């Protein structure tokens, strides 16, 4: 029985957002694409599941880079261009920050945000707006330069703010504004979505994060992130992409220094001109390349020279009262004992108690999220993989329940309601859950840590030198744009672009 064609233009390993974005873009250019996904549905962690008759979002908090219908940002525009028609719901606020002595709800829009910070910390409007405007200027440059690279003189002429802040951390740049600590604290909560504390986090990354989320707000699909993943997969299939689920790729086949196909766990050998891997470079270079000696030592040094970033730990509760009845007022709450991001980051190395928490109540952006009289409430922290690496299989259940209970208690205290009295369903997602469903290296969803040594500006400059096997590209959080569901799409498109560029170059 023959399940595959003799040959494809491109095989994409992984049918999550990055892999599907790559497949869409390649199919749009008429390429013959096969996507192999290990799970039985698309999306990776951008998915949902049903418990007790209630559909539950698995991972998505807020989708960035979508924009309104009239002003699409790059990811929203990509979906529109590809004919992926998603029913986007706007998230009402940026976030509610709950910090010692501060309870502030902030809304998107640079000026709105600055005004609301000013209301909480008077006299800061001009400076906060100046920070946000600087972020926006850098954001514009990053977006433009990712499409149209510029010469050095042009860079200075047109992208001065970007050029001049590129070598500095978020902390270093924010310090120059002379803002009071409380205002700085209100500018900090989103840091967790890029995963490193301000002393390490490149200002460039912070700028993109703030300009995108605060400038334009965020969105969620009406029928959970599964709507997004499924519509991408359906559209790709309609464009001729072959997607096969439950196919785990064991090996990437390399001949004469060039990727030429894959072997699946079931033993199928499938051939293609190009392979795009959503599996981490760590997995690929340490045990997926066949023959193993096709991996140069430089590739191993590259993965060893990088630090894995964050993973996720979520307690998802379906509660037997509505959000209003439980006093849940905000879609998104960040709660911390401190907004010293470096201290928070240090704490994420352990196994709790985690005191920097983000909570999402989907019902407040999507009233249909759960049946009437109930609501969903997810309590998430984004720990580093280090602590979880020490947990054994036999201790796993105890540890996950202990951490989950601490987080539920922490948010019960915040809400003044014992959440444990209202639990209809309780699902605990851990780094192991991520590893189980997606196969991601050490359950890491964030790729490599954004640090001054692993800076997007550096990643862009050294990308060519980090290309170790011809016709093998990577897509996913481990790539240039880093973590998050929006960046996943961008990373997938970049992989497809690399393939298309190589095709064009070699055709000449």
């Amino acid at each position, binding site marked *: *029985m023959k399940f595959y064609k003799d040959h494809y233009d491109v095989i994409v390993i992984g049918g999550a957002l990055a892999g599907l974005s790559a497949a869409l873009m390649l199919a749009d250019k008429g390429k013959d694409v096969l996507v192999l996904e290990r799970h039985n549905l698309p999306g990776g962690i951008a998915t949902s599941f049903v418990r007790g008759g209630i559909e539950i979002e698995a991972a998505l908090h807020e989708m960035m880079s979508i924009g309104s219908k009239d002003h699409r940002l790059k990811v929203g525009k990509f979906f529109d261009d590809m004919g992926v028609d998603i029913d986007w719901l706007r998230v009402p606020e940026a976030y509610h920050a709950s910090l010692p002595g501060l309870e502030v709800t902030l809304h998107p829009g640079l000026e709105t945000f600055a005004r609301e910070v000013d209301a909480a910390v008077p006299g800061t409007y001009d400076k906060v707006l100046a920070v946000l405007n600087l972020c926006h200027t850098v954001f514009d440059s990053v977006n433009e330069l990712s499409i149209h690279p510029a010469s050095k003189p042009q860079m200075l002429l047109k992208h001065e703010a970007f050029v*001049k*802040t*590129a070598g500095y951390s978020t902390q270093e740049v924010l310090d120059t504004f002379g803002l009071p600590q409380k205002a700085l604290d209100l500018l900090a909560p989103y840091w967790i979505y890029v995963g490193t504390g301000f002393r390490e986090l490149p200002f460039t990354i912070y700028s993109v994060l703030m300009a995108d989320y605060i400038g334009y707000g965020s969105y969620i699909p009406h029928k959970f992130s599964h709507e997004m993943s*499924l519509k991408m997969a359906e559209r790709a299939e309609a464009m001729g992409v072959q997607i096969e689920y439950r196919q785990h790729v064991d090996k990437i086949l390399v001949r004469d220094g060039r990727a030429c196909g894959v072997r699946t766990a079931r033993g199928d050998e499938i051939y293609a001109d190009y392979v795009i891997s959503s599996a981490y470079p760590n997995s690929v270079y340490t045990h997926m390349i066949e023959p193993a000696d096709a991996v140069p030592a430089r590739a191993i040094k590259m993965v060893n020279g990088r630090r894995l970033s964050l993973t996720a730990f979520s307690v998802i509760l379906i509660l*037997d009262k509505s959000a209003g009845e439980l006093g849940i007022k905000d879609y998104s709450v960040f709660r911390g004992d401190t907004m010293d991001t470096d201290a928070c980051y240090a704490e994420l190395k352990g196994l709790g108690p985690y005191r920097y928490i983000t909570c999402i109540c989907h019902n407040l952006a999507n009233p249909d999220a759960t049946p009437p009289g109930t609501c969903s409430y997810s309590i998430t922290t984004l720990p580093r993989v280090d602590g979880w690496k020490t947990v054994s299989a036999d201790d796993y259940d105890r540890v996950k*329940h202990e951490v989950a209970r601490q987080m539920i208690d922490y948010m019960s205290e915040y809400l003044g309601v014992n959440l444990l009295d209202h639990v209809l369903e309780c699902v605990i997602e851990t*780094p192991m859950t991520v590893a*189980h469903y997606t196969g991601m290296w050490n359950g890491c969803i964030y790729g490599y840590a954004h640090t001054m040594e692993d800076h997007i500006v550096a990643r862009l400059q050294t990308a060519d030198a980090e290309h170790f096997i011809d016709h093998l590209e990577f897509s996913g959080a481990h790539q240039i744009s880093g973590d998050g569901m929006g960046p996943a799409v961008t990373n997938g498109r970049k992989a497809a672009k690399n393939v298309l560029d190589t095709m064009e170059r070699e055709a000449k």
Partner: protein
Amino acid sequence: MKVKGFLKDVGGASRVAKARLAAFENASPMPVTDDPIGDVARTWHPGKLDLVVTEVRPASRTATTVRFERRDGKKLPPFYAGQFMVVDFPIGESLISRPYSISSAPYQARLDEHAFVEITVRRSKGDGFICDYINDSVKAGDAFRGMIGCGQFFYEPLRDARHVVALAGGVGITPFASMAREIAHGTLDFDLTILYGSVSSGDITLRDELERLHSDKLHIVHVLSGDEPDWQGERGFLTAELIKKYSAEDTTYFICGPQVMYKFLRGELGKLDIPRRRVRFEVFGQAKNITAFEGYPQEVKDKTFELTVVRGIHEDVIPAKATESLVVALERAGIRIETGCRSGECGFCRTKVLSGSVYICPESDGRRAADKDFGYVHACAAYPTSDVKIKIPIE
């Protein structure tokens, strides 16, 4: 890095690139393959395992317990008491899967030597040929493949009350047997009272094994519905009155038994003032007679349709009876499909309907909203009502 004067600094971009390359240059050239988080995930969820039967013993006049160990002698995966396992049975040309609640305890799957799991299967009354096959034919030394630790029917301390009343009917005792053993072992902590309904005392499954586990935390109350003059214990059905008698102020109810019992107990529990979150039913099981459900198109019930099955670029055409699920049609034709709960809930058999129409069992529609929009079904709970074309994963 100096902070002052950054607004004049234009060398940042090349500086970070140098730092990056230096970090790589100084890194070890030795491959690091450690993935301990992935290892834990694979220990809990290794997929289908090669198992061997090491013991078969009677569990009552009408039921048999089958013990499985791993063929490679290793420990079995951890699981939660109350979960089921899926066993593949090679029958002729077909490979048929069935979910069975695990009747042994989780700790027994993690023993250092001869770690095992057990299922307890009751001889059926004509409609479950696999149940009869297990009771009549399975013997020590037989080899099967099985997936351990599926389903959501287990005690969750962050959700459930300290006091649990289990309502069991017939062979529905099995998940509670697992919980009882784990409680007796001291590795699961809640108070469990099992109200166990049987027709006659001879039908009581695992009776002696469970009697031995009685403690402060564990009570088993047998309730006989049949006419048995010498019986000293509770009689009748699991009525609201009886349930109330054994309930604490805050009680979670777990229910596992035949489909008729579910219907009856929904009524009985409805008479008591119980919050929704305190009632947990095990999955419904495959519908016994799909034509009896609301909205079933009676005009097709005697028909057999053509089912076109797409796997990759390969297509097969097989017959599919209107009264049998797509999964059954596939298994009859010897086409492998992964199944789990066979109750429409778990989604293991998620399948795309490319054309044609199906009837979805209303008791068993655990689909995602977006899946419904795009014609995905859970094949174990979908019945053809026309010629149908489906796409399933290659197994």
